Every structure is written in C-alpha cells, then in structure tokens.
C-alpha cells in the first residue's frame, strides 16, 4: 500500500529569492530530491546580445541586488581579457577593495539576519534581535560599513555604476578613503568578537565528502583572479572552465545544473571551499582566527559555513584597511582600449562562490554572445545531493520539522535564489 503525503512550506525563508523543493520518500529511503529554481541570468545572456561592451558592467550589476559587484567585476574582467586590456596595479587594488565591501555586507547580512537564528531555534531575525540585540546591532553597523565602501567605490549604494571596462569612471581621493578607516577599524574588532561568539554555537554534525572548488591565487586570498582549484582534481586555468564544467538541462528547473563534465558529478562552492583551499592566504588576524576557531581540515560540515563566513569578514576588513592605508591614487582612472572581434572569460569569487562569465565581442565592440554561470546554480546539484544524505535522519520527525531542518541546511549555502529562482515550496511525498 502506498501512502503519499505532501508537505507544503509557503516559502524557504531567510534566503534571497524563491524556489521549490520536491522530495519523494519510500519507507525510509529518499527516492528523489529536486530543487526547482528559475534562472534570470539566462534572460540577461539574451538581453546583452547586441549591446555595447561599455553597457555590460551596468547591465550585469542589475542581475542581483545582493551581489552586484560580483557580476560587474566578472564581466569587466572577461571583457578586459578579450581585449588584452591590462589594468593598473592601483585600479586592481581598488577593485579588491570594492569586492571587500560586497563580501562584508553580504556575509554580515547572512550571518546575523539569516543564518545565526538557526542555531538558537529562532524563527526570524527578530527573535534573534530580541535575544542578542548587541550582536545584531553590531552586525547591522558592520553591514553599513560594507555598504559605505560599495557606495564610495561603486558610485552609489545600489547597483554600482562607477566600474567600467579598463578601470573606474572616477577614482576616490585619499581623503575619501581615509574617512572610512575609523569605522573599518571598529568593524575589525567587532568582527573578531563576533567570530568568537559564533565559534561557540552548537553545530549539527553533517560532514560528508564532496569536491570543493574555488579560485586560488599565488599571493593573495582569491577574489578577482586565480586558477580554479579543487580538492579532488588538478587546478585549471579559467580559460578551461567550460572544458571541465558543464551544464545540464533538467526537467524540473529552468536553471541549468552545473556538473563536472567527466562524471556529471556535483561540486561545492563558497566560503567553506575558499577557506579549505586558501586558508594560508588569509590576512594575519584572519589567519590567527582560523587557527583559533576553525574546525580541523578538511572542512566538510556544511553547518560550519558560518565560521568560514565570519573569518572572511575579518579578512575583508583587514585587507580593506591595508589597501586604504597604502593607497596612492593611480595616475589614470582607467586604461584606454580599442575594441576588436574577440572572446574572453573570467571567474571571480562572489560572496557565495565562484562566478564565471564568457563574452564574444564583434569588431564594433558589441556583444555577440555571453555566458553567465552564477554560484547558486553551480551549487544546486550539490544541495540536492546533500539533502538526499541529510533527509534520512529526519524522516521520523513531523513534516513541519523536516521542512524546517531542510531550510536550515539550505541556508548554509547562502543561495542567492533571486539569481536563479523564485519562491521555495517543499513538497514531501511519502510512499
């Protein structure tokens, strides 16, 4: 006799965007897990066709309200690669500073508003705020400091417009940057204090092996460039990304599922992967924190992502301070260039993982084609695989509990579902 039951959760709460999760269970066996997400970057790929390359950074920044810098940065790097444009060292540092701002504000939002409530069985950030007002207030102030960097370097707080192919439209003055220092220094202390608070959380045990993938750079913690490193396979250059990583169409989702081409296997991106592959490149205080609070390697427990995130916040703050303290305005805000028919790709590290762009440009400087692979769609298959492993321990629980625990697990990946989905409904079918 087959009994089918269906649980519906109106929304996967405290993630960016919306999606749907369908689970089919037979007895104590999980038969299938399907995460349905819908993927606007595909729309943008079509939207960019025929547009001038100068428009690309501003258009791609609008793909996501949460990580516009990641889209913008990856697009300019890819176009600069195509056109053999070398940016000046000063501009490169300012781009890292801009990325620091995005990592700070995005990670802090996730830590204090979205993820930390899970460790205290709080149903919302409001409940967490009632129990831990000092910590949440600290988080909000840190987020504002990250926003301040975005506003200064990006030209405005939302959908930055100051980044251009070859550099920036306008360079910040030394004074403008120096004004950020007192708050950044406060935030660095606050982040270290927060990290010690987070390290004391009661972490569920969920350690399963998987392939971790992140950029790796020879001299710095990866943000804007590097090779694509893995815990299972040899590193590859970004130019070879599409040879090694492919995308599958699946019936249940308009988002493409990224896989390793050689075995159609999933892989895992994001702070845990970055930290596993790059901890030796952390800034001094972040490295000290890593030694003090990070669980032993390899980093496999998905619930430890929040630790990786706060260590990266410390890193980003420390690096931001160092960049500003050493800042000498570049002689030119951007490198001049001439367009030509060409192709180029780039990968950078968005807060939630590696993001890849590829552009083909014609000799008039118009986009012929583009490919945009956001981190959440790359993590999607890994999330499904992890849920399949995680669910058996929950099957004796009530359906509300199962849904809530699935949400908690998914939040560890910080899915930016608005880049790839709308609304999560959980359908659990028991047979």
């Amino acid at each position, binding site marked *: 006799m087959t009994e089918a039951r269906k649980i519906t959760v109106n929304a996967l709460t405290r993630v960016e965007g919306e999606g749907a999760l369908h689970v089919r269970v037979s007895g104590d066996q999980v038969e299938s897990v399907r995460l349905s997400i819908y993927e606007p970057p595909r729309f943008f790929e079509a939207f960019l066709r025929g547009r001038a390359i100068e428009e690309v950074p501003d258009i791609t920044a609008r793909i996501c309200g949460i990580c516009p810098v990641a889209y913008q940065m990856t697009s300019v790097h890819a176009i600069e690669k195509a056109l053999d444009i070398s940016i000046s060292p000063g501009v490169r540092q300012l781009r890292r500073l801009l990325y620091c701002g995005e990592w700070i504000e995005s990670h802090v939002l996730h830590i204090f508003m979205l993820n930390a409530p899970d460790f205290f069985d709080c149903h919302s950030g*409001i409940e967490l705020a009632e129990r831990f007002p000092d910590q949440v207030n600290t988080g909000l102030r840190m987020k504002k400091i990250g926003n301040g960097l975005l506003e200064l370097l990006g030209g405005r707080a939302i959908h930055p417009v100051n980044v251009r192919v070859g550099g920036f439209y306008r360079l910040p003055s030394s004074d403008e940057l120096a004004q950020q220092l007192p708050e950044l220094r406060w935030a660095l202390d606050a982040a270290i204090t927060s990290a010690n608070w987070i390290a004391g959380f009661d972490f569920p045990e969920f350690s399963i092996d998987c392939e971790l993938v992140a950029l790796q750079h020879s001299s710095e913690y990866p943000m804007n460039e590097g090779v694509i490193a893995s815990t299972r396979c040899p590193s590859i250059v970004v130019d070879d990304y599409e040879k090694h990583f492919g995308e599958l169409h699946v019936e249940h989702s308009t988002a493409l599922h990224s896989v390793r081409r050689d075995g159609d296997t999933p892989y895992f991106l994001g702070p845990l992967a970055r930290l596993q592959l790059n901890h030796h490149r952390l800034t001094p205080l972040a490295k000290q924190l890593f030694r003090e609070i990070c669980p032993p390697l390899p980093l496999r427990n998905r619930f430890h992502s929040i630790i990786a995130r706060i260590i990266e916040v410390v890193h980003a703050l420390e690096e931001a301070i160092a960049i500003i303290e050493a800042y000498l305005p570049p002689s030119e805000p951007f490198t001049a260039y001439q367009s030509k028919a060409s192709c180029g790709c780039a990968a950078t590290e968005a807060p939630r993982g590696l993001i890849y762009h590829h552009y083909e440009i014609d000799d008039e400087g118009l986009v012929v084609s583009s490919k945009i692979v956001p981190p959440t769609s790359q993590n999607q298959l890994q999330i499904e695989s992890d849920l399949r492993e995680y669910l058996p321990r929950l099957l004796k629980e009530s359906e509300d509990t199962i849904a809530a625990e699935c949400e908690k697990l998914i939040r560890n990946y910080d899915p930016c579902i608005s880049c790839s989905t709308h609304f999560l409904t959980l359908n659990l079918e028991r047979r």
Partner: protein
Amino acid sequence: MSMVCSTVIIGIGSPHGDDQFGWVVIDELATMDSGDAILRKINNPVDLIPELETYNRVILVDASIGLPRNEPFLKLMYMDAKDHKLIREMPGRSTHDIGLYLTLRMAESLGKRTDHVILWIGHGVSFDKMSEMSEATVIAASDCAIAIAKELCDARNVAC
C-alpha cells in the same frame, strides 16, 4: 550615534517592475526642492535600521501589492494604530523575506525608535524580473514625490 535635526527619505526598491516605485520617487524628489532632506535608495530594508537613530524624521517609500485600486499611493504613520494595522497586514515581499514591517519590528527589538517613521506606499501590480514599471505606477510615483515635497515645504518652518 548623534542625532541631527533633519529628514531622510529612503526609497526601497529593486529593478523589477513596479518595485522601482521607491527609487523613482527618490529620483523625482532629487529634481525638486525637498529642502535639506537627505535622499537615499536601498534595496534591502534592513539597511534602514541604522538610519532610524540618525535622523529626526524618517520617510520610507516603498511599493506594495494589495492597496485599494483607487489609491495610487498612501501615506501611513507607523505609530498611528489604524495605519499600523494596515502596514502589518500589507502583503509585503522583500529580499530574504525581511520586509518593511518585519524590519521595523526588528528595529524596535533592537531598541531603535520608530515613532518618527512615515511610510508612503505606492500601489504595485507587476514585479516581474527586470520589467518596466506600469504606466499607472510611473504616474503615481511622480504624484507621490510631489506630495512628499509639498509636505516637506509646508513643514519647513516647523522646528524639529
């Protein structure tokens, strides 16, 4: 954080359809005489919390579905009991499920004042990804900006 005697007007929005209402109102206000009011655009409501202690008056502009059809926009006082109920029941959706009402409640949990918050809510119909604002909402945004600017002008002689 010291409070200054001033007004901030915060447009909350996204690039998606009528959700641009709050941002467009700010753009319109930037072309008008809005006194000394500080104009800001945000896309995540939680970013307004730190502003609550910085300004003497906080005006929030956002879009919502479900307003009466004959009301292109509404002015609501957060501390007014009747308005508060309406704000609480507004079918708001926002980034990470942290909508305007939840954000203001969170602010209260954090000990921030909310008695100086005024909301201007535009009637939204379509929030499709990257779609244009509807013609009616564009007109409403312009009218809303005029109404806010007029209020600011009328209030200019009132000590804060």
